[in-house]
């Protein structure tokens, strides 16, 4: 077994925040995930009568007190998800103020304020005489990240990655690098995306949306389910977190990225690109496959993705692949697109912190062509944590349109 890495530059996750179809806050997320409760169902964001499918994982309305903190004419819905998640993560990390600290922000988003942009465009096409330009104010994918930086007074580097479904994980990789290099002391990393017509109709045009809630890695899977939300992780050196009296929830130990360079939408069928990203993440973490105690898979539920991803696990993890429990957060909260890597990172950290792997969605027989140990129905307990024992790590994968792949390795910390 690989020994646990030591040293002052272990990068700690000192706080997390999340907004998803399961509700506002990481407690709501964990409560739903650990119960295997899917947030995917009917939705009301827009009239979907003329769309091919009719399910999504929509974020519920915030309660009154929270809603008051998210007022702002120029804020998009995705901005609000990002702000709520960042506020929660900073509070959990015991960082009520960032004054005097060197802080960077690393975000992922695929559609940013597209939902509001659609409303503007609809008005424009309808010849509406009084167009609301404020709808476009935060329309670009950098809108949510910039909104967080503005709200919390960040003066360090701020960057948004928009590499489709790998955006959030790539942003976390950038944050890891920024902490290790000493460029910043604190990194706020995550992503946000909201449900909108263009992604809903677009994925339907590819016939890659399941008419039922998605069923990752199941034999009858027919596609993904679109979700929305935001997720944020606070990263800092372990040394710094402990000096502030904050015990890490987990460690971000490694990141890797690659590209299939194969096709705009179809994954390379043998999973070679995704395997390269996983291997790079393990190498970066200084860990071998034997350290991985579970995988939070990209697991969209599309026939091609899940098959190629399984092959990537086999290539990168070897014989160990069949023995490692695998779960898919998307089965419960849907596909958060540019934010999916971030919310799955939060889910992975919560699994490590709670010592159990959340179940995947229900959905029939596991695909017999895959030798996968899918976590079904109820949480799977992780082995007992031994402070001086071998490393217990988890892998989270994100595989995007255009063949962009990203993998993250998180290590378990001494339970809080």
């Amino acid at each position, binding site marked *: 077994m690989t020994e646990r890495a030591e040293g002052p530059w272990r990068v700690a996750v000192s706080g997390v925040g999340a907004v998803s179809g399961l509700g506002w806050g990481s407690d709501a997320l964990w409560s739903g995930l650990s119960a295997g409760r899917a947030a995917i169902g009917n939705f009301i964001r827009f009239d979907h009568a003329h769309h*091919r499918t009719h399910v999504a994982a929509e974020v519920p309305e915030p309660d009154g007190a929270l809603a008051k903190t998210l007022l702002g004419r120029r804020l998009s819905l995705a901005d609000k998800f990002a702000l709520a998640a960042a506020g929660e993560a900073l509070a959990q990390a015991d960082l009520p103020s960032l004054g005097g600290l060197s802080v960077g922000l690393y975000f992922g988003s695929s559609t940013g304020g597209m939902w509001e942009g659609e409303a503007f465009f609809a008005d424009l096409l309808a010849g509406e005489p009084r167009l609301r*330009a404020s709808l476009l*104010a935060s329309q670009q994918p950098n809108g949510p990240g910039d909104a967080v930086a*503005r709200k919390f007074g960040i003066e360090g580097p701020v960057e948004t990655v928009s590499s489709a479904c790998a955006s959030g994980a790539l942003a976390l990789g950038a944050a890891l690098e920024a902490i290790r290099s000493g460029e910043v002391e604190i990194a706020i990393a995550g992503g946000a995306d909201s449900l909108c017509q263009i992604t809903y109709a677009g994925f339907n045009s590819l016939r890659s949306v399941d008419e039922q809630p998605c069923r990752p890695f199941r034999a009858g899977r027919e596609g993904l389910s679109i979700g929305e939300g935001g997720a944020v992780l606070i990263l800092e050196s372990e040394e710094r977190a402990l000096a502030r009296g904050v015990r890490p929830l987990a460690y971000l130990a490694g990141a890797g990225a690659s590209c299939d*360079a194969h096709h705009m939408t179809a994954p390379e069928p043998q999973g070679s690109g995704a395997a390269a990203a996983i291997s790079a993440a393990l190498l970066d973490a200084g860990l071998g496959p034997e350290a991985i105690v579970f995988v939070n898979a990209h697991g969209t539920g599309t026939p091609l993705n899940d098959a190629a991803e399984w092959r990537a696990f086999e290539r990168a993890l070897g014989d160990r692949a069949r023995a490692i429990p695998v779960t898919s957060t998307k089965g419960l909260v849907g596909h958060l697109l540019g934010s999916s890597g971030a919310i799955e990172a939060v889910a992975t950290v919560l699994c490590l912190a709670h010592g159990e792997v959340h179940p995947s969605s229900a959905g029939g027989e596991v695909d017999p062509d895959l030798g996968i140990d899918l976590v079904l129905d109820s949480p799977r307990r992780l082995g007992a944590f031994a402070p001086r024992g071998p490393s217990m790590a988890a892998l989270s994968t994100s595989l995007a*349109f255009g063949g962009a792949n990203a993998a993250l390795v998180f290590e378990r910390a001494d339970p809080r």
Partner: protein
Amino acid sequence: MVITGCGGVSAYGLGTEGLEAALQEGRPRLSEIDRSAGYHHADPSARLALRASTQSLTPWLQPGEARRMSPPSKLAVTAARQALAMAGLADPEGRVAAEAEGDSPGPGQATAVVLANSFGPSSFTEHLMRQILLENPEAASPFYFTECVANAPAAQIAIAARARGANITVVQREAGPLLAVAKGAAEVASGRARRALVGAAEEMTPLLHSFLDRFGALSRGPRGSRGADGEGESARPFDRRRDGFLAAEGAVVWVLEREDDALERGARPIARVAGWASAFDPTAPPTDWGHGGPALARGLVRGLIRFGLAPAAIDRIVSGASGAVAGDRLEASVLSSAWEGETLPPILAPKGVTGEYGGGFLASALLAACGAPFGPTAGFAEADPELGLIPHDGRPLATPRRVLATGLAAGGAATWLVLESMPESMANP
């Protein structure tokens, strides 16, 4: 870290020769934007832009390949292939490619792609929205959808050039192109990639042009000077009469690699990437520039120190000043704060020629580092006493040792890049 290849498509043609001539002449090549869709306000509104989509992209991109690409993807792939060819990277069949065919390269051997854009493939997004809103959601085209994502150009580069390293698209408005170079350089410097293809690609559609105009971002010409044909519309960096920027489209891609790698394979470095810095101005509203110049300057200096550099080591500035009223004010404040009131080195402000977006600014920064001659600053005629800064007047300048390229974005982001000239630099990349 060196740049061994540069490719581009702009209003000035393929490559950078046309741009270099325009910078020397100090005259932008503007054309009328199509306003027939009725997206623009009735007058007064902006009418002009620097268009690249009229350029023929052959022989770099054949029609059979191009039919599967959005406009910015076509521009990006064309620029990437030019850059790879210039860097001397071709496979045994003579096709330009970042990597050899076969299995994924080993750790650290792949080629990363880091590309910036601000608005994504706008025309395809618009087509898709029209299908969804005016026809039926089921009429949405899968082709438009797959090519309307922001990372389509970067992905198409990877597919066309067989680049299997990290594939990253950054979206940080006007700071994006420099940020893309910085992130690509970091991929190579860290050993995660052997090479990186970095740059920017953007298309300028009538819809996007109208959006920018509605926010007052584009020059409409000083009040009273505008004629019916767009006369008076001009980017006026640092000028007292500035009233907005010129929108542009195009693509620029560079090849980055370690200097020893480049020399070992016989490539000729064009310039070095010597350092970079990023910061954010939280005083900025989402669609404009803020007033946090001194804090941004501290971020710039802190970043330079990480690379063993300081403002005093810079002998040329290629400013991202675009003619934006608040943007140029912030730029002047950052520079004067960073130099602590000392005399600034000569300042080139090429966006009067390149316009904003599309990577023309990146190409200009590289040309400056190579000692290309710059004429008088296009659009500048009258100093703004509030800024206390006069851009280049066209007199001959020696080849600089280190160039600082600046990128302050509306919304708050900022990135700076330091390029170092090579001892025997190619004067014309």
